């Protein structure tokens, strides 16, 4: 291959171009990114940046090394608008066309926005650095905050706002926050944690309207309740950035559909990160994963596939890892939790804010959750990838 194009210049795209050079690829390399700035780290946006502790200088994913040594053509601030799979060409919004021999798609996802409160000031999202700094600046005035959606972003924003001493209401449509990620008992524990820290958490209810005269004044719930608020943060999930791929021959299904090795339906086109959906053999399930570590690992796997071909590449089958920092609790999870899974707390307790819990299905351990117990997490993650049996794990934990 002489020309490789990577579309998407956040974590997955950056780690992909780094991997290409590390693996000895010496041909032309182009990195296309919609945002005008150099690749930056997003997890601190809802935490350190929001609390005003970190400036943007702390977010550089290259840690000051710059992009120069990667010897690439960086097209930052330019949206990719189309892909011609037959001609092997990426089209950009500035009219330029990038021919490729190999293409890696890492266009990620954007924050969803509910069609409510349109035209009102005081409605925020948290996805980009601009989103986060605008919200940080708006929090200085001490608003009453209403967070819509108690997923990772919503809960971290709620925790950061409480750290700033703000009054916070959080609305979640599901019966419990993160219930689809952690299962009922542990999701209930997360709900209790937030309530203990002073968040007014309302679950199982949706938002009917965001009302106000020019700016946010209240949030109206589906049950008619009105919540007075000066500021709304929407944390209602993301939508994969795939519109530019329509008609390209790439298969789209809530993301870019890939095979077990991150290859798309088009030859020499692979995908990684938030945008990619692929069959993970470890869980016998097709998944799209939006976590930090996943972006790094899948970028690496997709690069292997691109450079070495299917024969010489192992299927990509990780136990996805995520973390979330909320108050004084570091929540870490690896694997997959599904409804009906076995659950056993093998160490500690919710009350102690320190615990290790295992999730199991069909005789195997499929997930591990820890609160403030980092030593255990990675050890179990490794064993889950190796097919750790439920009986062995539970008996060795109780011995």
């Amino acid at each position, binding site marked *: 291959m002489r020309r490789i194009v990577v579309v998407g210049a956040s974590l997955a795209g950056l780690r992909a171009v780094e991997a290409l050079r*590390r693996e000895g690829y010496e041909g032309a390399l182009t990195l296309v990114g919609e945002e005008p700035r150099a690749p930056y780290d997003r997890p601190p946006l809802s935490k350190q940046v929001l609390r005003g502790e970190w400036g943007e200088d702390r977010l550089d994913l290259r*840690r000051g090394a710059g992009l120069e040594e990667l010897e690439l053509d960086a097209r930052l601030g330019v949206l990719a608008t189309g892909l011609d799979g037959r001609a092997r060409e990426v089209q950009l919004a500035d009219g330029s066309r990038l021919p490729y021999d190999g293409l890696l798609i890492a266009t990620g996802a954007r924050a969803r926005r509910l069609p409510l409160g349109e035209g009102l000031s005081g409605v925020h999202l948290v996805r980009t650095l601009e989103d986060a700094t605008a919200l940080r600046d708006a929090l200085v005035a001490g608003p009453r905050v209403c967070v819509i959606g108690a997923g990772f972003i919503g809960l971290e924003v709620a925790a950061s706002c409480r750290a700033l001493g703000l009054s916070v209401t959080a609305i979640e449509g599901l019966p419990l926050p993160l219930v689809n990620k952690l299962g009922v008992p542990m999701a209930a524990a997360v709900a209790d944690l937030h309530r203990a820290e002073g968040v007014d958490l309302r679950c199982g209810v949706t938002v009917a309207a965001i009302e106000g005269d020019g700016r946010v004044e209240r949030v109206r719930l589906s049950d008619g309740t009105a919540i007075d608020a000066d500021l709304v943060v929407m944390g209602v999930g993301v939508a994969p950035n795939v519109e530019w791929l329509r008609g390209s021959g790439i298969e789209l299904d809530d993301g870019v559909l890939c095979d077990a090795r991150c290859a798309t339906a088009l030859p020499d086109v692979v995908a990684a990160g938030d945008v990619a959906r692929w069959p993970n053999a470890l869980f016998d399930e097709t998944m799209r994963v939006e976590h930090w*570590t996943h972006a*790094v*690992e899948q970028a690496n796997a997709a690069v292997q596939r691109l450079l070495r071909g299917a024969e010489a590449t192992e299927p990509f089958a990780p136990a996805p890892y995520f973390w979330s920092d909320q108050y004084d609790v*570091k929540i870490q999870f690896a694997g997959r939790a599904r409804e009906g899974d076995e659950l056993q707390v093998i160490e500690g307790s919710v009350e102690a804010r320190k615990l290790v819990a295992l999730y199991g299905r069909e005789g195997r351990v499929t997930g591990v959750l820890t609160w403030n117990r980092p030593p255990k997490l*990675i050890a179990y993650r490794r064993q889950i990838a190796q097919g750790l049996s439920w009986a062995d794990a539970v008996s060795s934990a109780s011995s």
Partner: protein
Amino acid sequence: MKIVVDFDLCQSHGLCTQAAPEVFEIRDDGFLYILKEEPGEDLRGKLETAVRECPTGAIKVEG
């Protein structure tokens, strides 16, 4: 080759202990320990993985 960890940045995610267990360990106190501050060249690949996968960018390989 020298391993430098910025312990102000380290949050004990522990991914480095997966990438290079010969060099990194998280103990029961929840803190990261460096087992070999000057590991051999044979570990360079694993250490570069640890650097890359560290969610807080706390690890550096010098030399």
